[in-house]
Each structure stands twice: as C-alpha cells, then as structure tokens.
C-alpha cells in the first residue's frame, strides 16, 4: 500500500518516523503495482 501524509508519500516505512501534525490528512491507498 501507499501512505500519504499531507500529500507526500511517507518515507520511513520501517520506524514510522514521518511527522504527522494535529491537522494532517492521512491517506492509505492500495498499491498500483502489477499492471
């Protein structure tokens, strides 16, 4: 899956250190791969 925080793909998928603010928007999308 792909996770966006405030329109940016998160960078740290292992330790989850990307900063999330109080008003941040978070989107979790199904990965597109496989086409």
């Amino acid at each position, binding site marked *: 899956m792909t996770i*966006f925080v405030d329109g940016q793909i998160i960078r740290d998928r292992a330790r989850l250190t990307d900063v999330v603010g109080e008003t941040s928007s978070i989107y979790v999308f*199904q990965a597109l791969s*496989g*086409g």
Partner: protein
Amino acid sequence: MSETILISTRKGLFTVSRMAGKWEITTADFLGDNVSITLTDWRDGRRYAALDHGHFGVKLHRWTKMGWEEIAAPAYPPKPDGYEEYDMWNRPLNWSTARIWALAAGGPDEPGLIWCGTLPGGLFRSTDYGQSWQMIRALWDHPKRKQWMGGGADLPGIHSICVDPRDSKRVCIAASTGGLWFTDDSGASWTQRGEGMRAEHVPPELTHDPIAQDVHCLVQCPAAPHRMWVQHHNGIFVSSDEGKTFSEINGVEPSTFGFPVVVHPREADTAWFVPEIKDEKRIPRDGRLVVTRTRDGGKSFDVLTQGLPQSHAYDIVYRHALALSESGDQLALGSTTGGLWVSEDQGDSWMCVTHTLPPIYSVRFS
C-alpha cells in the same frame, strides 16, 4: 499489407508470418529468455530486441540480414559521491537499467537514431543504431523526476515514446507513474504535459496533478499529431493539442480500464482499446475478451467480439501487446495466457493464431 509480426514473450521471441492468407509461427529466437520488447525500425528494417535476464541484467540485440548480434544496452551513470536516492518504498534506488520498456525510431531525418525508455525512469538515445547510448540527463536530472512512482512495476518506467512526424526534435514520452513529458529540442529540455487527466489513487489535492497520472499507454496519430490518445489507469483520455490538455471519455462499455491503445495512422478519431475489470481484478468482464473501437473521437464505441473467446477467457493484454499495421487495417493482440489473435478488417473479426505461447509482453508488426 504487413506480412510479419514480432511477439515478445516471457520465454522467447516469436516471428509470425502471413503465408497463403494464414498467420503462422515461423521462427523462435532467444528461447527460454525473457524478451521485454522489440522494435523494427521502419526507416531501414533493422530489428532490435530487449532481453531481461533478471539478476544477470538487461541485454539488447540487433538483427540484420546476418542474424542477431548483441549490442550495447543503455547504462545509467554512477551516482554522484555521497548522493543517495530512494524509491517510493524507501529503498535505495539503483541507478541501473532494470528493464527496457520502450523502443522507438527517430525521425526520417535522423537515420540510426533510436529512443529507449527504461525502468527506473531513464530515457536514452542512440545515434549509431544502438552501438552506444546516451542518457537524456535533462529529464533524469529534472527535480520532478524524483516524484515518479511505481505503477506498472515497483519502479517507475518510461513505456511510451512518440516522435512527432513533423519535427523529430519534438518528442513526447509517458511514464508510469509520472505523466506526460514533452521536449521540442530533442531532449535538451522538458516540460510536463497532461492537464485534464484524473488519478483516483492519490489524495484529492493531487488528483489532477499531471505528475500523479498513471498513463498506461500514449499514442499519437501520425497524420494528425495534435491528436493523442491515452489509456490511463483511471480511464480513457483524448487530446487535441499535442497532450497539453485532455478530455476524459466516459461511459464506455464494458470498461474504460485497460492497458493498450492504438490509433489509426490517418484517421485521428479512430482508436482501439482492450477493456478489463479495473485494477483490483484485471480480467475481462464476464470472461469475454473484447476489443473496443471508436471512429468518432470517443463519442461512441463498437464492442468487437467476432473470433475472440467469449467464455471463461481471462486474458490480459499488456500495454505493448496490441498493435496496428501501417495500413491501419491489420491488428494483432497477444495476451498473458499466450493467446495471439490477428484481424485484417480493423477489428471486425479476429483469427486465433495460437493460444499456447508463453505470456506475451509485446506485439509489433514488422
């Protein structure tokens, strides 16, 4: 009328020839090897075949009357000292050719010039019939290139290259994902194009951002280069201004999802698609393999079925696996389940050449 089709598959390159009105497999090359795509240069008849040997790397071969010979494959430059770059999965991005995904001949005024699109997103050009390759640094070094993401594969890649028949310096490429990019100086500078397309797989603020678009396939009408067609992850789009802006074509049955598109060489409003259930399934609807065709710029579509399997067919047709001949009358399509069909009446009827080939990646008239 074309007499030869090159079929790139997971297990070799097959030549299909028209003999006494029937299409037959006549040659098998590179048996056992993964052939990602081929090009027959319409200017001189040379053929090129790209092979993906997995961890043994990517190779490129050229065919002349003497047979196949290995030539140089495009190679990425070393990363600058101390520089690191990460892909969308936060893994270090190797600057190396992971796959050759597009090959295109230059213009008639550029003999020997070949364009090559690759994963993870590098565009290359050869001016000596593939003997050597130069990376197009202006695109690779473009700051927005780092926003490209995996789409058709885990890594971003360039799959479509359109050379303007009026001016060979004008080239439009498409990346999955990364949208459309245009140069009018043979690659020295690039601008993003593709306003009007729509991506559902990104946050709403990015939905209409041209760089977020997952273009599956881009084609340009040779006789009317202002007309471009796109089969996109989220539908079918058409442009009448060389890809600057696009309009979405809605309401096409059985689906607007798919991978390939081809456009008639002289009739800009005529294009063909292969629809599937959208991304989470990726199979023909109701087990029926069909081709859709518009003759009026997308206002209406014919659903073409005659000769195609209409029961329990689960064939997927990849973005390079639908081809149209120079005449605009012959079509060929190959599927992931090894089926190959040819039409000689613009898709009204199809004949099955075989259904036992390895998974087909690319179909090209030669």
